[in-house]
């Protein structure tokens, strides 16, 4: 047999199953059909492969009893409980994630927790937060700016000898300063 044909035969032996299952492109199929028309060995191999697998499938199949099959379907096709769904989800999670990925995820989560817990406490104040203040039985609702202005006005009007009044104003003024600081006023 010419060397060229031997190489083709060897190649066909490797690709025979792709040819049988029709998983090769049209051009390659054409090439093999041409070769099979000329090569009795490869043609015999192809027929033999087909026949053996066909006979095996025909003669070696197993089957379940119909009644058994019906019972199995009834057992399988039941409403899935929430517990079972959760178990399935956990199982798939375990299967899909390698230990390394799980460890990495857990480490990142722990690091984020530590970072958040060690952050200095801050007061977050909305710049548009309204403040309710009561002056001389009058309830006033104002923004921080408004309260600040009021305090300045009252301070100007108030008698300096009124220590209690002054102390109260100072306390409130101090609170407002704190709020301003918090919001980087």
């Amino acid at each position, binding site marked *: 047999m010419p060397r060229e044909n031997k190489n083709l035969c060897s190649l066909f032996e490797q690709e025979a199953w792709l040819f049988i*299952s029709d998983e090769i492109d049209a051009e390659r199929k054409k090439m093999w059909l041409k070769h099979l028309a000329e090569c009795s060995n490869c043609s015999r191999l192809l027929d033999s492969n087909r026949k053996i697998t066909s006979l095996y499938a025909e003669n070696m199949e197993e089957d379940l009893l119909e009644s058994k099959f019906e019972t199995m379907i009834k057992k*399988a096709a039941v409403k899935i409980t929430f517990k079972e769904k959760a178990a399935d989800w956990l199982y798939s999670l375990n299967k899909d994630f390698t230990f390394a990925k799980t460890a990495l995820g857990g480490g990142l989560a722990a690091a984020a927790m530590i970072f958040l817990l060690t952050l200095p406490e801050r007061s977050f104040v909305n710049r548009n937060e309204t403040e309710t203040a009561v002056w001389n039985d009058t309830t006033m609702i104002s923004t921080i700016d408004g309260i600040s202005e009021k305090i300045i006005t009252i301070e100007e009007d108030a008698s300096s000898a009124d220590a209690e009044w002054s102390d109260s104003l100072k306390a409130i003024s101090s609170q407002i300063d704190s709020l301003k600081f918090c919001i980087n006023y």
Partner: protein
Amino acid sequence: MVDNLENRLIERSREGDPAAFGELVKTYRRQLFSYLVKMCGDRTAAEDLFQETLIKVWRGIKNYNEKEKFASWLFSIAHNCSIDYLRKRKLRLNTFTELKEESAVEKDMQEIFASKEFKEKLEEALNELPFRQRQVFFLRQFGELSFKEIAGITKEPLNTVLSHMHYAVNKLRTALRSEYAQGK
């Protein structure tokens, strides 16, 4: 047309219709069961695995992607069940002896195949194959899957899968030839 019917059954199964599910799986019943019997070598175990496969298919059918052939997805689940079973049983594979034959004897093949004794010899011969060759052979025989699909399920390169099939069939060919020679 078959595909349309199958798609309708899949849709109804997703909606929770056990009857549709039964019809859907019935199409593949013999092949699926045969595959499991051959893979685990035990009929009782195969029945348990069949049940397990049905449960997993029912539960997972909402996540089934239509881009993949249903048979391929079904056999993929069955395959994984059988692998888990074999791992738990810690079944070991025998070594494989490569046999090359030029051709099989076609004339009396049908008769040979029909004999109960030969069937047992055949099963023995296939059981001697390494596990990876057996799984490819059975997926092809009973799943009727393409070799590309089989490569996807077994996570092996396509050429390796083809090679497994080639050696498995050679084994059968040798057993046939030997049986024929004895018959003479």
